[in-house]
């Protein structure tokens, strides 16, 4: 079965993409992940300047999930373009860049540099990272700011732009609509959800950043609802994810309106999991009586 799917003008050989921050710059997994199964890799969010991120510990396992407080550590756009791009362009997989900045202008400037590199097929705007005090979540929780960021980027870029939304807002439809109005090519969701874990013995937070972002199967029902809400509100092509673990999860996300489905935390348990999902897809789709993944998208009956 042909698993390919069009996503806002990009051609993906399969609907499965690797989520930002969980697959690094892709080349770290070279020889471990068989990228030929993967529709695209979304690389770790990059900022204008390098960021050193939060103090350790940065990772804490919770029931059916992981809390992280990486704090957007990254090498900065210059090093990305000089050191990483050559590696990335050698891999046989489309790569989507992810950027974060503190102002709409900052986003726009980064977007231009990403586009100039010529190797990225699309751009994710991380306006919803719970692990930064400024810049991240602030945009993604406010419709006006969301709109402003998206349109600033839109004016400076011709590759498809996917603002990445948080579900930790009162009304995600409002944010999705604002992104639409700003000119988003599609949406990516959801980012991790702010959470906390405590080491009882020391009465300290388990993470150096105190709070962190929750990912993994624990958040799947919340993510599915977010995808369905945004699909209904905007009809935009969606990269949906949050807790995806197996092929059934992928089908649920597509039925709720995702055209592509991202695998993040599950990759830590099984780096080859995304590939196994892709292998399992054709027979699952056949069982559902569809001849292409796109036929599932948004077919939730209510």
């Amino acid at each position: 079965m042909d698993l390919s799917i069009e996503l806002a003008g990009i051609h993906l050989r399969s609907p499965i993409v690797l989520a930002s921050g969980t697959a690094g710059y892709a080349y770290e997994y070279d020889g471990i992940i068989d990228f030929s199964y993967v529709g695209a890799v979304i690389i770790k969010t990059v900022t204008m300047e390098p960021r050193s991120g939060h103090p350790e510990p940065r990772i804490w396992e919770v029931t059916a999930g992981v809390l992280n407080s990486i704090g957007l550590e990254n090498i900065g756009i210059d090093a990305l373009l000089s050191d990483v791009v050559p590696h990335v362009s050698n891999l046989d997989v489309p790569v989507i860049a992810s950027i974060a900045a503190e102002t709409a202008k900052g986003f726009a400037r980064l977007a231009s540099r990403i586009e100039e590199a010529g190797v990225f097929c699309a751009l994710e705007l991380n306006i919803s990272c719970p692990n930064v005090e400024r810049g991240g979540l602030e945009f993604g929780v406010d419709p006006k700011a969301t709109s402003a960021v998206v349109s600033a980027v839109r004016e400076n870029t011709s590759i498809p732009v996917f603002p990445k939304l948080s579900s930790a807002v009162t009304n995600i439809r409002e944010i999705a609509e604002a992104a639409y109005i700003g000119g988003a090519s599609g949406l990516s969701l959801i980012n991790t959800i702010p959470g906390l874990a405590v080491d009882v013995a020391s009465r300290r937070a388990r993470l150096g950043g105190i709070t962190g972002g929750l990912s993994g199967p624990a958040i799947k029902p919340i993510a599915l609802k977010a995808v369905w809400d945004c699909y209904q509100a905007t009809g935009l092509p969606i990269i949906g994810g949050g807790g995806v673990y197996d092929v059934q999860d992928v089908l649920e996300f597509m039925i709720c309106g995702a055209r592509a489905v991202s695998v993040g935390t599950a990759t830590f348990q099984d780096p080859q999991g995304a590939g196994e999902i892709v292998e399992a897809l054709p027979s699952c789709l056949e069982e559902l009586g569809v001849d292409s993944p796109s036929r599932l998208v948004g077919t939730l009956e209510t």
Partner: protein
Amino acid sequence: MKKSSSERIEKRITSSVYVGDGTLRNRIDVSSRYFILEVEIKNPRASCPLPGQFFTIECGGGKEHLLRRPFAVHSIVEWSKEYAVIQFLVEEVGWGTRRLRNIMPGDKIGILGPLGRGFKFFQGNHLLVSGGIGVAPLHFAACYLEERKIDYTFVAGFKSSRSCYSGLEKLEGNVLVFTDDGSAGKKGFASSGAVSAFEQAEYVAVLACGPEPMMREVFQMSSSAGIACQVSLAERMACGVGACRGCVRRGKNRNLCVCKEGPVFDGTDVW
């Protein structure tokens, strides 16, 4: 600090990696908290692990426990392109290690490795200092040195005789065991054992693995003695391959990515 002048005999490289299932061949309880997992891999096609390198093991956590657990190689029973048998020495401390203690010979476990960068070795006398389960990678280091007929002294500290790792008795080198309560070996901490080891001989390199305060003490001693000290750090890990930045910690002047640049670092990079 004076750099050791001795010749490096092994390149510190990141080797190519095996990802897939291993089969538990044997599980040997060695103390109330420690046990050895002997894992068999068909067609590893990866380079042979070096002392200090580690594997991440999927403990069968399903959706509830998502992360693999990292374990240093404790010894290599066999390693070829077609077939390998590795031993891990594991301390039962929580869910994952309890689960590993309960798997049965013949069961499959997901393993990924060898990962990270191991210890550097030199020509000349080495001092190995371990605290608790830190004995695991240093045992491998000791075997490695023995094979190459390089001298070493191994100072191993444990809580008590109950947690002592008896496998050290098979080593041919100079092994000094310490326990906090004196119930086995000499009474005292590994770091105090290191003090007397420093008094008794000269070393070209110090290798330490154990609780961080201990490693730091050993590093400071080594520094005063003008000897380079390598320490094996432990941080919570998610990916194990340098992709997620989850294991990154602050070093002296910069962030250290424990899974990729480490787990073995020069003490001078850390403190």
